[in-house]
């Protein structure tokens, strides 16, 4: 298939828009960083693109966006109307009868669709798929009209048991469409035909909630691109780490919830695998949080659902990203029991750490890093401030942490870093050791602004084998946009006993699902090397409640006509795959207990032509030339004269012994006393034990 031309990845963040341009013919890349303008992202988007020349010369643009994430977190989605089965209008608000916290009973919950925007209509489908009551078409039309009159901008239709038979929903959708004035309308069986009414309702409602927001955002960007005569393809990264067309993004905007972070994880996976580290843990340290993701054998882990906030559940495969409240802005304090805590409260980016001098007087992790000399106070990242106020940071640390614990300011600052390190290590441990992975096989891949400051501690606290700092940590997400595959995921609840299963019927079902998903991938019109089809079953022993993801060792072998095909699935194959997966998760198989298939999951992946990461490697340079001087940095209870290097000036093969600080415009890497660092053939910095 066709080769890549010129492609740009665009990652729009809260403060900056990062771009990565790649011309494959010339093997040339460029990066750009321009200010973001919240609410008018198109302006920054265009400014950034123009730094690479005329837009008409670009073949494709791939975008990782947080517009969906922000709309969810800030509750700024559309006004949604919900039409549902008689007796069930409160499903969305009743949730799964949970509460916010294990301990403490205060706090309420406001759903994204308020009760007066949820309307019941006569209809009922049974779990068997039999229709007990056909849908009342006139009632659906009346409900849609009434919701429209009240101001609903998007419409979601969710009927009980629609996963088992979607007929009533489809009739209702057709009826509502005759009176609904826009495309912001959908039904649950088209979005998530999976058992569990709350999760399906929540996903469908949140999808509708995002449709107008994401739709108008994309329209603005497309208009801006048109105005500059861009004639190529424009794509969006989804939460599963794959790319989709803007058409699919408009229909399924809930799948963009983790678009931005997912792109970063994809890039980290590609960079580290090329560098010979297929097993890594990525860590993105931002202002308020630390996002961790696990990559095994070069593959990202997918979670079946995510909870955006209490009661807001999106059920779609998403790159599994664990977030803890430890970031550069996390505030350090001593609790009532005399224990030092860092976070979860954060000073954010405004007012930010004490050293920013913007009004916060409680010490943060960044303040501790500045006081210890790990961050260069004279060259702040991002270039907004001329200088950081070290003395103010020191005074705050002494007052809020040092005095209550009987430590001096330096000791207290070091303690803050240690606690933050151990929180990050804990998050990494949860993702690795606690799932049975041996940490000594893994490397940490810190990206974002602050991760590389703590790389050494992650190596030592968790027992990782190394840390790999990408050459451009700040544009990792933009790079991810360029290299991400095209992907489409589907699920269908089956509820079948394995014993005596009709394998022919199941095969037919699998082929159908694959064809549907494949059509979505092909419609993205991006160059692909090949198309992979993956199947997974959610299964359990009969009587068990939860299911286990069971990957099937089959794909679709094309029939002679190119369609039709077969998977060759058999009952024995499924039983064997289940037992393997079960034993990997739990110590005891339950022989003699029958097995059941709950869901069929189908993923179709359009594999993009491989991206030669060696293009990123530095050309020339010397270690001596990269050395910019020394400064005292506090390690293990004392100041040490520490060599400072301009990281981007270091040549391939350069080796640097700790203690050392490696600075670059968008990140700082700390190499501890007992560690050393080298630049690999791709320009990555590899930090290891001496």
């Amino acid at each position: 298939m066709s080769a890549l031309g010129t492609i740009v990845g665009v990652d729009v963040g809260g403060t900056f828009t990062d771009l990565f341009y790649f011309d494959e013919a010339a093997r040339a890349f460029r990066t750009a960083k321009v200010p973001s303008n919240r609410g008018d992202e198109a302006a920054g988007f265009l400014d950034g693109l123009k730094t690479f020349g005329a837009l008409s010369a670009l073949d494709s643009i791939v975008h990782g966006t947080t517009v969906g994430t922000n709309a969810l977190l800030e509750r700024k989605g559309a006004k949604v109307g919900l039409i549902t089965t008689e007796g069930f209008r409160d499903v969305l608000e009743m949730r799964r009868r949970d509460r916010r916290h294990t301990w403490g009973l205060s706090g309420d919950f406001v759903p994204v669709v308020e009760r007066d925007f949820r309307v019941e209509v006569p209809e009922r489908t049974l779990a068997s798929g039999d229709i007990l009551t056909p849908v009342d078409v006139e009632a659906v039309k009346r409900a849609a009209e009434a919701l429209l009159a009240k101001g609903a901008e998007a419409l979601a239709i969710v009927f009980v048991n629609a996963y088992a038979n979607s007929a009533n929903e489809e009739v209702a959708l057709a009826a509502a469409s005759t009176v609904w004035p826009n495309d912001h309308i959908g039904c649950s069986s088209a979005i998530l035909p999976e058992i569990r009414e709350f999760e399906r309702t929540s996903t469908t409602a949140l999808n509708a909630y995002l449709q107008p927001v994401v739709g108008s955002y994309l329209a603005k960007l497309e208009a801006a691109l048109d105005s500059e005569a861009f004639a190529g393809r424009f794509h969006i990264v989804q939460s599963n780490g794959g790319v989709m067309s803007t058409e699919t993004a408009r229909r399924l905007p809930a799948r963009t919830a983790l678009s931005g972070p997912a792109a970063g994880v994809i890039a980290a996976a590609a960079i580290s695998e090329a560098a010979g580290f297929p097993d890594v843990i990525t860590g993105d340290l931002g202002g308020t949080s630390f996002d961790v993701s696990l990559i095994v054998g070069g593959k990202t882990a997918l979670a079946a659902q995510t909870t955006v906030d209490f009661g807001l559940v999106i059920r779609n495969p998403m790159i599994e990203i664990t977030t803890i409240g430890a970031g550069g802005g996390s505030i350090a304090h001593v609790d009532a029991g005399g224990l030092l805590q860092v976070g979860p409260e954060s000073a954010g980016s405004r007012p930010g750490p004490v050293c920013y001098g913007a009004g916060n007087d409680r010490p943060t992790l960044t303040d501790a890093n500045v006081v210890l000399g790990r961050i260069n106070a004279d060259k702040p990242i991002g270039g907004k401030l001329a200088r950081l106020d070290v003395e103010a940071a020191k005074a705050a640390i002494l007052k809020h942490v040092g005095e209550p614990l009987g430590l001096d300011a330096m000791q207290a600052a070091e303690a803050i870093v240690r606690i933050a390190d151990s929180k990050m290590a804990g998050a990494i441990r949860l993702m690795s050791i606690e799932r049975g992975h041996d940490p000594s096989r893994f490397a940490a891949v810190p990206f974002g602004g602050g991760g590389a400051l703590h790389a050494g501690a992650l190596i030592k606290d968790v027992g990782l084998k190394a840390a790999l700092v990408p050459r451009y940590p700040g544009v990792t997400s933009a790079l991810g946009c360029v290299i991400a595959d095209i992907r489409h995921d589907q699920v269908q609840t089956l509820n079948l006993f394995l014993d005596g299963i009709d394998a022919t019927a199941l095969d037919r079902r699998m082929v159908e699902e694959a064809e549907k998903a494949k059509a979505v991938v092909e419609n993205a019109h991006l160059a692909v090397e090949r198309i992979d089809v993956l199947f997974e079953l959610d299964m359990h022993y009969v009587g068990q409640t939860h299911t286990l993801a069971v990957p099937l060792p089959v794909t679709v072998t094309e029939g002679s006509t190119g369609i039709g095909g077969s998977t060759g699935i058999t009952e024995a194959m499924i039983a064997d795959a289940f037992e393997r997966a079960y034993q990997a998760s739990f110590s005891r198989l339950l022989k003699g207990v029958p097995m059941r298939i709950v869901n069929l999951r189908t993923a179709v992946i359009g594999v993009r032509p491989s991206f030669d990461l060696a293009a990123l490697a530095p050309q020339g340079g010397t270690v001596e030339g990269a050395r910019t001087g020394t400064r005292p940095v506090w390690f293990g209870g004392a100041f040490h004269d520490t060599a400072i290097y301009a990281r981007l000036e270091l040549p391939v093969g350069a080796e640097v012994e700790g203690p050392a600080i490696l600075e670059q415009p968008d990140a700082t890497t700390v190499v501890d006393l007992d560690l050393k660092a080298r630049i690999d053939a791709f320009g990555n910095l590899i930090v290891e034990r001496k």
Partner: protein
Amino acid sequence: MSGATLDPVTLAVLKGRLEQIVDEMDATLYRSAFNPTIAEAKDACHGIYHPETGDTLVQGSGGLPIFVGAMAFAVRAVIDKVAKDGGLQEGDTFVFNDPYDGGTHLNDFRLVRPIFRGGALFCWMASVGHWLDIGGNVPGGYNPKAVESFQEGVRIPPVKLFSAGKLNEDIVGILDANSRLPMSNWGDLNAQLNALDLGERRLVSLLEDYGDGTIATAFEAFSDRAEAMMRAAIRAIPDGVYSFEDVLDNDGITDDMLTVALDATIAGDTMRLDFSRSSGACQGPINISRSTTIAACYVALKHIFTDVPANAGCLRPISFEIVDGSLLGAGPPKPVAGYTETILRLIGVVFGALAKADPDRALGGPFGTINALSIAGHRTDGSRWVLFSFFGGGLGGSPESDGLNHANNPISTATIPPIEILEAAYPVIFRQWALRPDSAGAGTYRGGVGAIYEVESMTDADVSLLGERGKAAPFGVAGGEAAAMNRFSWKSAAGEGTPPMVSKITGVRLAKGGRVRLETPGGGGWGDPRRRDPQRVARDVRLGFVSEGVARDTYAVALAADGSVDAAATERLRNEEAL
């Protein structure tokens, strides 16, 4: 244990590592358990316990709150057994469900395993989970007519399930023979063993990393810290005696109300909880043992003082007065299956008493009943089906917010199974699954609203319910009002019925097509309803949570024809009321 001290930084690191181990044990059990009461409702708990006293050293962040308090008593029961009989070896695992010796009720099976280091006992690890059926007169164990524990199921004292690593198959045989659902229990037993195996591996690896002495010192420091934090929290409450009481509908046998009364004395940094004015033991299954009472107080205090860590240290400043043989200090063979109802009332009473001491921290009474509903019948192929579940209601208002609508009980973090899962598993059709209007207690911050559940059976079925709050509603605090009461009814060809004992009944015979209906209480309100923001009242009316009549009469808010607040009329109403 070692007298050395650890720096606060290492301590914080170890706290995180140890809690992770327990969290992972919880997760392993939930994921591999058979019955939904463990897998979905998370009616289970794990922890690490002191080698000599059985005190709780480490708890996870999940785990059923009531077990967090009760598990120490369970471990102590094993310690007592070993002290009497001796013979403790590496590789032993005890199993038991004795509710008098370790708390709660017969469905809760405990596995307790000693962890040895260098040939000596270092600590205990334990797992508890709610098994679906352990015999007795009623499937599921919640027999509202039980007058002795023998009618509730089989009672197993602490016995060795594993002896030096070898499974005692005879015990499994006894357990199997005494359950209607032996396969489910066998699955859950294996899942609990999965959790213990994993916990032991993780703990041993941590001990290898840090050394036994360091970990032992950390255990001690955690308890001291929890104690210090609890003392600080108590010191912040004004000294005095604060009394509160509430009632239970009946014991299911005699239709007399039962009292749970508390006199809480705050003196400096200590708290005395005196329950002596409470009722004596009853005939029916809502008695609780002394250890359950203490565990329930622990849960109540943890909900108020949320920062205090979950270990035994936080109970050190607190003393208890519980009369032996009373409702709250029952012994064998008094029936205890409905213990949840009594501890919910008890937790409410602790909230009520402390609300008087400190209204700014007060919580309105939570809905206060688990509504254990069982519907059982036979499918057309003759196989037996038992739908058994607990239902939700509203939480109380607080100075921070309205109560949560349709929440779980304070004693658990249980989620409710989706109706689509229930309808796929059992021959039932849910006809309604909704929030219940006018069920919340009014207040400046109102309670959360309760729910309505209506279920139709597609076969003939027998129904039983063990509930509460049919006679006395969840209370309001700081001037807030009470919520609506619980209501249970059924409809069949013969007409509509309600339980003679209000909230407890067995043996309701439902013909195919018959329906049962539960309307659950909301939570009590916080603060004077006439001080509630009129816009919030208008919103409640618009959403159908509060009727216009209640808005006018209780909240003193007048609404215009379009549903907006009539400010002038509201001001008049509120001034009149104030007179």
